[in-house]
């Protein structure tokens, strides 16, 4: 293996090292890399939205559909136009109509989505038997204890986040159990996040040593 002669690999290596230079201190190379990232991400998102959302759903829909499903697309096109009215100061207030539509949609989808995707499935998954029969006594104790811990953890975590009543007496005791479960959950989530970031770092270091310098 030898050093890469591909100019694109050199550009990628320069950008990687520019970003990593922040570990030393905030410097001009990091600032340039950071701003290139912001600028290109914004353009990337715009291109993505055009090719995967606006073009297939609005432009292609209007060209390919017939009858009612074609003409109904005038409504989102009109709302999109209203949104852009924010640039025309005398009629900027009219963009609120489009904002109101997106907020109403978000609220409606919030209720149905949270009900169907989170609340009901989570409650359903927590309604568990306290006694589970296993193939041995030890297994029975293990399975039953797991279910008891799941129910206790869920309920105590909910109590911990219940601020309408002062946390004193039994409520305080239950919320303290909740903290214990929450600490374990945060610790586990933290462990997972660290692992994900480290694997990204390993990926970048491997790129520098393998793809760029050809050392490994």
């Amino acid at each position, binding site marked *: 293996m030898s050093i890469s002669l591909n100019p694109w690999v050199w550009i990628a290596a320069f950008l990687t090292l520019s970003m990593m230079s922040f570990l030393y201190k905030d410097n001009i190379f990091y600032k340039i890399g950071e701003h290139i990232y912001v600028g290109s991400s914004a353009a990337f998102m715009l*291109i993505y939205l055009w090719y995967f959302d606006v073009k297939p759903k609005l432009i292609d829909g209007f060209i390919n559909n017939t009858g009612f499903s074609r003409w109904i697309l005038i409504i989102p096109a009109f709302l999109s136009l209203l949104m852009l009215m924010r640039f025309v100061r005398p009629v900027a207030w009219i963009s609120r109509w489009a904002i109101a539509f997106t907020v109403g949609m978000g609220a409606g989808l919030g*209720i149905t989505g949270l009900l169907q995707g989170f609340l009901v499935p*989570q409650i359903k998954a927590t309604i568990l038997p306290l006694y589970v029969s296993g193939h041995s006594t030890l297994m029975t104790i293990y399975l039953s204890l797991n279910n008891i811990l799941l129910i206790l953890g869920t309920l105590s975590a*909910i109590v911990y986040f219940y601020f309408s009543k002062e946390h004193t007496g039994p409520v305080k005791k239950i919320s303290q159990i909740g903290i*214990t479960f929450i600490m374990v959950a945060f610790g586990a989530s933290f462990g997972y996040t660290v692992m994900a970031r480290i694997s990204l770092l390993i990926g970048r270091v491997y790129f520098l040593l393998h793809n760029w310098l050809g050392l490994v």
Partner: protein
Amino acid sequence: MKREVPLFITFITGILIIIALFIPHKPFGQLQTTFNDWLIIVGGFTMILGLDSLLLHNWEKIKRKKEGWLSAAFLIASFFITLFWGFGEGIFFHRNPFDASATFLRYFYTYIFVPLQSTMFSLLAFFIASAAYRAFRAKDPNSTLLLSAAALVMLGRVPGGQAVAPWIFAFVLLLLAYYFFNESKKTSGTQQTVYIILAIITLILIYPVFYILLHYLNGIADWIMNIPQMAAKRGIWIGISLGGIAMSLRIIFGIEKTYLR
């Protein structure tokens, strides 16, 4: 007119989406999908508002030669280069820039976007490590739990973790025993006896902990993820859902109007 019409639009849109959930027949059945498509279209145009703000802010910096104007120039240049590259692919070569054969995906995405994004996120590993040093000090039972759960999950999910973990935990227990012995020297009476008993228990625990971690570390990590972690997450999710539903109802019924400011 300026406030009532938007409130009415929000109310009608929100209510229609909720009705569509309970009446899965025509004309309501398709309503959720149709509205969702509309939201995506309008959302796409909303991004133009954000871009206007981003570009104007940076253009002002360049025009007035404010601090950081050079980086602002790079931001604007990279924005337009990416934009022309992506759309140029479609206009001049009649292909989607996200096709595997497109130069946009092959060069821009692989050699510019991915290095910038993944290096930016990988930097967090260092900052997380320094944050962990502060957060994970075993100064009380809760932070000890946080530290132990994180250590067990991390070591239980990495190759070689099972071989390293028993030694790490044995060393920690040895340090703990040393700490208890040291504390016993500073105290007297019942407290001294308690410290000595704690030190002996810690020393006795070294072997079983070493044995359990050597053989069952993966199982322990799975158990942490599936039972205590899942229980707390469920509590948090249920809380988030209830809060989200309450907030959505406030918006639909016009109690929450901050978005109209």
